[in-house]
């Protein structure tokens, strides 16, 4: 049995920032199913928010209000306040670690505009901000290699829980197929999101709900899974991200008639309204037949920005357009469409990174979560662009501090190694024993298709019910899937099957919570209930697995400074 003081699952921004904190005094393991440098945080392009005020006067108060309004008043305001207050410090710390940032003429960190932010607040490194921070943190882990052991290409299967305490994880080495138990005083999940359940998504193949479902499987609830963000600018058909920074720099959105249609939907902020609003506006235009050339896309026009500014500020995404669509945004418009991008919901935590097990905030001992897989909730019903990198860094650090505090005064808990291993080995065996009459590829495609069409930008009761039934049918089919590779060595097929199992479970939770929330708020829009309904739904959804099936309980929203108000832009 492997032993570490703390095991952190996931090596993106949240996981690595947490590791840097925890390794000051503890022996830390970081486990990733890819490599740290390949984590999906690296795909973030446009920036990381902080009220540095480097290009215009700004304040944490404004950042706080923008975040709460952007989240359609579902954010927990006490957490938001601490989060935006911490922002400038954590950015400076990243700079001190060596992170590379674009600069203002006087050498300060440059800042640009972003959707829903009333001030230019996005600190950036050209159009690869996530990449720059990810590599800076990875560099720091390499520097601290004595106290941080990185398990590259290891997969986390399940949590080891004893009563109200978490004692480790069961994992396997993808390269050799060996199953191992890691005993730890504390476990931190920083496992990212689950955008892969949708057909069109900006997410990496790795974003498959492994962490959130592992938590759910030991009886913990998930919070607000119905809130999924659709990003307005996914490259047409591929869904990969074309940064909001393009609009931050001044790009236009045009429908098939060449009109700047945002005039109708958000006249004061236009293209820089929050993502939920822009994505819905785009989908409305497409649904009304005003897509470009009758297709399911609209145009992003950067041409007026000029070659020089595009090459300086957006060089990487210009290249993406050329490589993936054969279109150079200096001379032509780019076809884009809404793409599933970010999970506002996840494993419920308090503002210190402790996972909680119910609507009253009861802590689970030794279990922490941070980043996209967690729901604090600072983003409420809709996250503003550049707030996610900030969340990962702020709450990664906080989880690290909480772990330090927790693990210092505690010994290892009980782990029955043989039993825990056997459970996971049986999971493998079950997959190999299936009769093979169904194709996992078809099941995955069907799941992605139905989630996109029935649980996407626009939802209604009828669609959601069909979606839920379809998903249940797919779960049955999943038990009969066909596997061709039964070897141990770098068997990517078996891991894809396990991931698909997690995604089917997650999709069902998203759709179930979406059906229950009979209102429209942030990223969740019900055409049959198009208004926000604070009287009945100003609360977080906590979805539990019970013997009677899925049950949703209410968790109240923490409101400190800003009473819910109408949300217009």
């Amino acid at each position, binding site marked *: 049995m492997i032993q570490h003081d703390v095991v952190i699952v996931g090596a993106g921004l949240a996981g690595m920032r947490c590791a840097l904190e925890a390794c000051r005094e503890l022996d830390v393991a970081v486990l990733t199913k*890819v490599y740290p440098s390949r984590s999906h945080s690296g795909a973030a392009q446009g920036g990381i928010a902080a009220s540095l005020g480097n290009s215009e006067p700004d304040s944490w108060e404004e950042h706080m209000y923008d975040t709460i309004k952007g989240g359609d008043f579902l954010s927990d305001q006490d957490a938001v306040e601490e989060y935006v207050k911490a922002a400038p410090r954590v950015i400076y710390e990243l700079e001190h670690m*060596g992170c590379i*940032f674009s600069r203002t003429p006087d050498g300060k960190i440059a800042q640009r505009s972003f959707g829903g932010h009333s001030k230019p607040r996005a600190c950036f490194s050209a159009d690869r901000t996530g990449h720059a921070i990810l590599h800076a943190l990875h560099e720091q882990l*390499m520097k601290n290699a004595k106290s941080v052991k990185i398990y590259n290409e290891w997969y986390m299967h399940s949590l080891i829980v004893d009563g109200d305490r978490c004692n480790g994880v069961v994992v396997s080495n993808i390269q050799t197929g060996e199953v191992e138990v890691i005993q730890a005083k504390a476990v931190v999940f920083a496992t990212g999101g689950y955008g892969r359940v949708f057909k069109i998504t900006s997410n*990496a193949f790795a974003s498959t709900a492994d962490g959130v479902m592992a938590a759910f499987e030991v009886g913990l609830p998930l919070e607000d899974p119905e809130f999924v963000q659709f990003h307005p600018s996914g490259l047409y058909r591929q869904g990969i991200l074309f940064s909001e920074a393009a609009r931050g720099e001044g790009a236009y959105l045009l429908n098939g008639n060449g009109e700047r249609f945002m005039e109708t939907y958000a006249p004061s902020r236009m293209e820089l309204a929050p993502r939920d609003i822009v994505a819905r506006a785009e989908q409305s235009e497409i649904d009304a037949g005003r897509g470009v050339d009758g297709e399911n896309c609209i145009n992003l026009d950067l041409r007026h920005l000029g070659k020089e500014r595009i090459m300086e500020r957006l060089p*990487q995404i210009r290249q993406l357009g050329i490589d993936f669509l054969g279109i150079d945004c200096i001379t032509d418009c780019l076809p884009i469409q809404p793409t599933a991008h970010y999970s506002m919901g996840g494993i419920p935590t308090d503002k210190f990174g402790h996972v909680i097990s119910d609507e009253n905030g009861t802590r689970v001992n030794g279990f922490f979560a941070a980043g996209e897989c967690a729901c604090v909730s600072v983003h409420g019903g809709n996250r503003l662009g550049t707030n996610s990198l900030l969340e990962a860094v702020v709450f990664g650090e906080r989880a690290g501090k909480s772990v330090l505090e927790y693990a210092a005064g505690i010994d290892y808990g009980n782990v029955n190694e043989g039993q825990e291993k056997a459970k996971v080995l049986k999971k493998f065996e079950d997959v190999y024993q299936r009769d093979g009459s169904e194709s996992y590829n078809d099941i995955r495609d069907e799941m992605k298709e139905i989630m996109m069409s029935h649980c996407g930008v626009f939802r209604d009761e009828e669609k959601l019910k069909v979606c839920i039934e379809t998903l249940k049918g797919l779960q049955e089919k999943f038990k009969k899937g066909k*596997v*061709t590779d039964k070897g141990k060595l770098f068997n990517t097929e078996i891991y894809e099957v396990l991931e698909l199992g997690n995604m089917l479970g997650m999709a069902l939770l998203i759709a179930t919570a979406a059906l229950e929330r009979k209102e429209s708020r942030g990223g969740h829009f019900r055409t049959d209930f198009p208004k926000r309904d604070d009287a009945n739904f100003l609360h977080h959804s906590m979805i539990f697995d019970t013997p009677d099936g899925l049950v949703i309980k209410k968790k109240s929203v923490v409101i400190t400074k800003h009473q819910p108000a109408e949300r217009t832009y």
Partner: protein
Amino acid sequence: MATFRIKRFNPEKQPEPYFEEFQLDIPEGATLLDCMNLIKWTLDGSFSYRMSCRSAICGSCAVKANGHALLACQRQAAHIVDNDETVTLEPLGNMKPVKDLVVDFTPFWDKINKVKPYLEPKEAVPEKERRQSQEEFLKIDDSSTCIMCGACYSDCNVLEVDDNFLGPAALAKAQRFVGDSRDSQTLERVKALSDPGGIWDCTHCGECVERCPKPAKPFDRIKEIMTVALEQGVHNNNGARHAMSFFNSVKRSGNLNENRIPVESMGFFNIPGLLSLLPVGIRMFLKGKVPPIIHHSIDEMDDVKRIFKELDQ
């Protein structure tokens, strides 16, 4: 219908690799990675390779296609197939294959770790950010785009014959800090990088620049480190002496004094080094390959002088 000729390898089943062919209609707009996925998901689930982001930023899916390393997600499949509608896929080179297109990255990361790939700050940090000018930012902008995909490492000609070479990715990473105005260890770094296995072992073939899917372009970064090393006076090694000798020879005579360069590169007082040149010298003599003993300048020395004068300015 295109043919995907894929190098398969699974030592659990068979010790030797072999090629297997798959036929596939390339969907419109499909990337090479999309096609690999179609093969895996519809034709043979046991086909292994790495992938994650699909947007050329995570660096997972680097493979060799038709003999050259590239990112599978970054290329349109239709652009990769050759005239007879075939594409040959193999694992990256210079690393040990694990299974199919998956290789062992351990030596790659070991070498990244060797260059101290982290900032060693100059002074105690200020309360806010350190200032950095746009000019200073530009010096590390390109190297910071490296995604650690291993494409350069795979196709590096030096690594093919010399395991000890740090390789293009590690050297590009090194430049990220050599060029950083906030770093305190510039001299120590360029000294270490001038050791055997470092910058001077690069043969300037430029293959890494061709293969790099990002603006990191390792050889350009290697040249930048060389410049800093010479500026910092780190001359006491064969590579730097070779570069200086080359430079001085051209400056003096407009062409290379091939008798002088090997001696100057080794160092006049490096007796064992000079002796090690003898066997080569003798073989050259016996084959009649020794350059003329008396070295002549070229006729257009005025032009050469003018060029060097302009360079000096």
